[in-house]
């Protein structure tokens, strides 16, 4: 009875300590999220949107007479400029398959014009459509809302047409509908879902189905059609794929058909909204992403274009010297041709070729630009109108104005940036003290003091900041920001109050000095060196570009270090030494192998050869891995004698699911190959069902069964049993000699083997969504983790600083090796459609999340194994728990420091040429990573994983 009561008390104590930790960490995560949000607000500034609308005043400022009555406006998404011009001797699928535009411009230069069209970054469809209709420069912050396009509230030519009682027909990409629904004639509104990048034909066929019947009607003034096929082929297969040839040919035929059918009054405009890079993606600002196409054609006898000399249209060298115009120039051109006012926010200038006499259009345009500048408080009186109105001076005025706006709208709000950095710094100092300075025994007893003071102080912060807001009414500070900073500062104070209550700063500094004096060895030096070097990476764009190679170098340095250390360690027996060297070599070898899988970022240029492609050998490799990986994991389990009961069940399940995964990608590959002429729908249903089965089993069923507490042990009844592995018989039971002794196989790794099953669950889900080579890299990660755990056990690195750091580095290494880079275009949007055909909120996003952060999810989950791997059941679960907390908070400290460093350097380099290309995406990755790592560590690793495994094992074995 007494024993039972004691056990119960102990379990209760464990539970209380456990939740104490969790709540402290949750509060800490909230503090970090607030600081990241503040920094983001200051850095990713949104542009002031003026909602003034231009109008014509018939007496003072009349609109010019329209020169065209009707317009067909076709957007072919991602139509790069070299797709439409002849490229001699090229056998690429995307060259020479869309000749009609160039041919018409050559044969009939008075009636048609083909120009290179320069997009403004960011080259995402939503931003481009805003730019093409308002004539303004949508900023980066809008890029995030591409998934649910906002309604536009700026002046634009659709609004102007609507106000002039024109009828707009629309068909195609539903981004238009999201932006302009009010202005489109509801009779002729045919939107199609745009983000399903695996669907190549639906949108295009929809457009073609509706455009011809509408053209025959008379009640329209503008037809807008948006084709998505070219873009989707780029995303799905890359530009050089045979379906690109078919698609471009189809576009060619349809454009010529439209030209045949259109009447004399109509102007046809064909444009691309952006280009695509060599992988078929877009979003950045490389030349290939920016260069797209502008084409105009009419049969109107009275309408003549004014082409420039032939030398301006030079198609040699993929048209790099071809005459180009900006995308914003479309807006005044179209407005003036249609006889509507130029939208208020326009920054562009009419395109020369489209006007016989540019004088009146240019006057109208610079008047409008001047009006816009005068109405904006920031731009007012900064740039004088030209004194004499020549076309050249107008052009230079417009150019200066455009450049001025470009620099201005990249302005940053330093107060939020500094606030974010300061808050993050304080969170870093706290977590450093929490993880390393304060003894872990003390930390475990202080949880509730932290919780109490953090809640009290943040409430006080809310009250104070609210009263400050009410009483002082600070300008340029919204209520949300005011309260947010109040809460954050309150939380910082709340975290520090109990620490200051118990310890002094001097004492804490002493602890750090003690660390260097007593527990400092080569390994902790290595860990610290890696942290410092990783932080310094953000000081130079070159190192950010080559971060993948640097991370690999760090990991290999550590690996070679373990190899040498095991080799020269005299305390390890020869057998163990050979085994250890084997683990160390496996770690090194696998690491080198997966480092050969990479996706190059544009800035790496010719020095990087991309290997992350879905080819036949990657499929073969995936099949081999799906067979080998379970075998390897099994052998690791056998090493600690834990391949029992739940072990085989999980490994067999894993084998089955990995096989399904391999089949999924085989179907995908065969489908893309288009070799057997099997209709896509057959594959589609197969693939959807496989993906759903694998994800549901691995994420839901397997985790549910895991939460029931599977153990990898077996009771072995045998007479001669090694004494240290037997449970000592209870004293009241006599005659143990007669009974066979019970040995528990797998006793020595009881926590680790059970916990690793959880890692397997998530790894399977991550491997499914990671594309074939990504899955191979993730398999490598699992092997690396297991060998690393064995090395930790052998070299006794459990409590060393280096272990969590290496886990963090492994996460980064496999972020890169599973086909990612810290750039926007390298996000694998297409995996979102593996389980559903359309965008369904959590599922599509879950896939992309698993794909992008897969390696980090796995390393965060495996982190408690540093403590749990190969330890027998302990009667002091709280000690084990506090060690796990140390490990977890060490990783959080590491990532906080990395994020802090990248925040500071990104803010410092905010005027750097490369800031939007290199530093800003890297800082976004770091901000997201900090949140993801916090969430996964708290909820999955600690709450779900560690909580279950500790209570389960201690319920059975704890006495």
């Amino acid at each position, binding site marked *: 009875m007494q024993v039972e009561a004691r056990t119960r008390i102990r379990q209760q104590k464990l539970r209380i300590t456990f939740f104490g930790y969790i709540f402290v960490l949750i509060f800490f995560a909230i503090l970090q999220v607030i600081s990241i949000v503040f920094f983001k607000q200051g850095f990713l500034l949104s542009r002031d949107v003026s909602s003034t609308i231009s109008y014509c005043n018939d007496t003072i400022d009349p609109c010019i007479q329209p020169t065209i009555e009707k317009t067909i406006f076709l957007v072919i998404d991602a139509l790069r400029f070299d797709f439409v011009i002849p490229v001699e001797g090229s056998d690429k699928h995307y060259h020479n398959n869309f000749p009609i535009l160039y041919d018409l411009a050559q044969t009939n230069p008075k009636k048609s014009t083909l120009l290179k069209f320069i997009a403004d970054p960011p080259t995402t469809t939503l931003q481009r459509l805003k730019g093409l209709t308002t004539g303004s420069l949508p900023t980066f912050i809008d890029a995030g809302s591409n998934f649910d396009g906002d309604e536009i509230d700026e002046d634009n030519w659709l609004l102007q047409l609507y106000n002039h009682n024109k009828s707009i027909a629309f068909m195609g990409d539903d981004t238009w509908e999201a932006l302009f629904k009010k202005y489109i004639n509801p009779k002729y509104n045919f939107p199609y879902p745009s983000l399903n990048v695996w669907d190549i034909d639906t949108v295009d066929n929809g457009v073609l189905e509706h455009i011809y019947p509408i053209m025959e009607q008379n009640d329209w003034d503008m037809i807008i059609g948006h084709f998505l096929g070219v873009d989707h082929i780029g995303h799905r297969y890359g530009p050089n794929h045979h379906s690109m040839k078919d698609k471009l040919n189809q576009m060619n035929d349809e454009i010529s058909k439209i030209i045949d059918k259109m009447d004399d009054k109509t102007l046809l405009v064909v444009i691309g909204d952006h280009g695509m890079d060599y992988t078929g993606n877009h979003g950045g600002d490389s030349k290939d992403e920016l260069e797209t196409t502008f084409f105009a054609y009419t049969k109107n006898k009275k309408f003549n274009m004014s082409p420039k000399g032939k030398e301006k249209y030079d198609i040699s060298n993929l048209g790099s010297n071809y005459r180009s115009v900006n995308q914003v120039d479309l807006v005044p051109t179209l407005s003036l041709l249609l006889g509507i006012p130029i939208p208020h926010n326009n920054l562009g200038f009419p395109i020369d070729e489209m006007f016989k006499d540019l004088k009146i259009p240019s006057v109208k345009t610079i008047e409008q630009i001047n009006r816009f500048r005068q109405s904006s408080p920031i731009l007012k009186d900064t740039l004088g109108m030209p004194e004499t109105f020549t076309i050249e001076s107008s052009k230079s005025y417009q150019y200066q104005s455009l450049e001025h706006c470009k620099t201005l709208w990249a302005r940053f709000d330093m107060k939020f940036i500094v606030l974010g950095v300061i808050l993050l710094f304080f969170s870093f100092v706290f977590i450093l003290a929490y993880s390393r300075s304060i003894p872990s025994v003390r930390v475990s007893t202080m949880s509730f003091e932290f919780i109490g003071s953090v809640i009290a102080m943040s409430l006080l912060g809310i009250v104070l900041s609210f009263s400050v807001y009410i009483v002082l009414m600070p300008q340029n500070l919204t209520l949300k920001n005011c309260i947010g900073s109040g809460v954050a500062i309150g939380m910082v104070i709340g975290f520090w109050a109990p620490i200051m209550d118990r310890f002094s700063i001097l004492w804490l500094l002493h602890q750090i000095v003690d660390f260097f004096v007593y527990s400092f060895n080569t390994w902790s030096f290595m860990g610290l060196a890696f942290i410092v070097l990783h932080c310094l990476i953000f000081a130079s764009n070159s190192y950010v570009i080559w971060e993948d*190679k640097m991370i690999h170098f760090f990991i290999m340095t550590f690996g070679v270090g373990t190899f040498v250390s095991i080799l020269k360690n005299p305390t390890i027996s020869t057998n163990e030494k050979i085994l250890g060297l084997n683990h160390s070599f496996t770690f090194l070898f696998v690491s080198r192998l997966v480092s050969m899988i990479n996706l190059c970022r544009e800035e790496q240029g010719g020095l990087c050869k991309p290997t992350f492609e879905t080819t036949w050998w990657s499929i073969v490799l995936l099949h081999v891995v799906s067979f080998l990986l379970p075998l390897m994991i099994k052998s690791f389990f056998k090493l600690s004698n834990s391949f029992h009961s739940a072990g085989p069940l999980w490994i067999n399940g894993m084998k089955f699911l990995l096989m399904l995964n391999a089949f999924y990608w085989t179907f995908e590959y065969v489908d893309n190959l288009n070799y057997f002429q099997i209709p896509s729908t057959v594959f589609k249903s197969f693939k959807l069902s496989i993906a759903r089965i694998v994800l549901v089993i691995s994420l839901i069923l397997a985790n549910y069964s895991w939460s029931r507490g599977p153990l990898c042990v077996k009771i072995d009844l045998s007479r001669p049993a090694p004494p240290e592995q037997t449970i000592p018989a209870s004293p009241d039971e006599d005659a143990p000699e007669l009974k066979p002794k019970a040995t528990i196989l797998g006793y020595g790794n009881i926590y680790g083997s059970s916990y690793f099953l959880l890692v397997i669950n998530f790894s399977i889900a991550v491997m499914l969504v990671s594309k074939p080579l990504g899955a191979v890299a993730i398999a490598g990660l699992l092997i690396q983790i297991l060998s690393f755990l064995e090395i930790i056990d052998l070299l006794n690195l459990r409590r060393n600083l280096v272990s969590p750091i290496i886990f963090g580095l492994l996460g980064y290494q496999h972020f890169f090796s599973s086909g990612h880079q810290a750039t926007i275009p390298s996000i694998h949007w297409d995996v979102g459609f593996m389980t559903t055909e359309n965008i369904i909120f959590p599922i599509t996003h879950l896939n992309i999340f698993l794909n992008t952060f897969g390696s980090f999810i796995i390393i965060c989950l495996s982190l408690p194994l540093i403590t749990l791997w190969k330890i027998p059941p302990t009667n002091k679960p709280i000690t084990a728990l506090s060690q796990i907390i140390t490990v977890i908070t060490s990783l959080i400290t590491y990532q906080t420091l990395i994020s802090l460093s990248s925040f500071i350097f990104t803010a410092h380099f905010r005027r750097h040429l490369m800031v939007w290309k290199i530093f800003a995406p890297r800082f976004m990755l770091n901000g997201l990573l900090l949140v993801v790592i916090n969430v996964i560590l708290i909820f999955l690793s600690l709450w779900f994983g560690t909580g279950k495994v500790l209570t389960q094992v201690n319920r059975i074995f704890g006495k």
Partner: protein
Amino acid sequence: MARRKVTFDKVSEDEVEPPKIDEIPFLTNKIMTLPIHLPIILYGMFYYGITSDVQQVMVKGLTTLIMAQIVYGYLIYVNVSGDGKKKKNKDNLFLLLASSIIIPIFLSLPVFGIVILMGAPLASHLYETLLLAAHVSLIIFTPVIVLFKLNFSKFSIIVQKIDLKSIWNNSILLSILASIIATWCGVIPIPLDWDRPWQNWPITLLVGSYLGYFLGSFIKLFI
């Protein structure tokens, strides 16, 4: 003159003196053994245009290095502590110096493997990497072999219990460690976008290994 064996097992042969197996041999004259040849060869390689023709000049440098390392090995041998004159006569100097060159050349293969593992390019520059491995291997292994006089068991016992302090106290071991660390640091300038010819693989690592070794010996002159 009868042929003498180079001893592999010191304990069994030496009965007179008590075996000082865990004592690291050290240099008695640090000025004589200053590896001044390393910066000279390095300068020579740059003089002959390593930045424009990496392979040719590295081969040239390697042959020079082999010759110079023989002399350097002899200087170490003459100035190493531990044995009296009588003992020294028993050593086979020719075999010792020959193996101090030949063994590192064979060991350059494992070094090559490590360099590849650490992330050297696999698809190209293999010959340059191999040459780098040969240079590094000669720089770091030749002095060790001469220092321990091919006594592997002594070497392995010392290695098992070595710590940073005893490395710091020994000029040659410190130079070797400095050379390895400097070679490691040699990768740092490569990613910078300065587009300088000396950023080519593996020039910076080569410079690191040469200068690291030299500086390691140089600072021991003063400390």
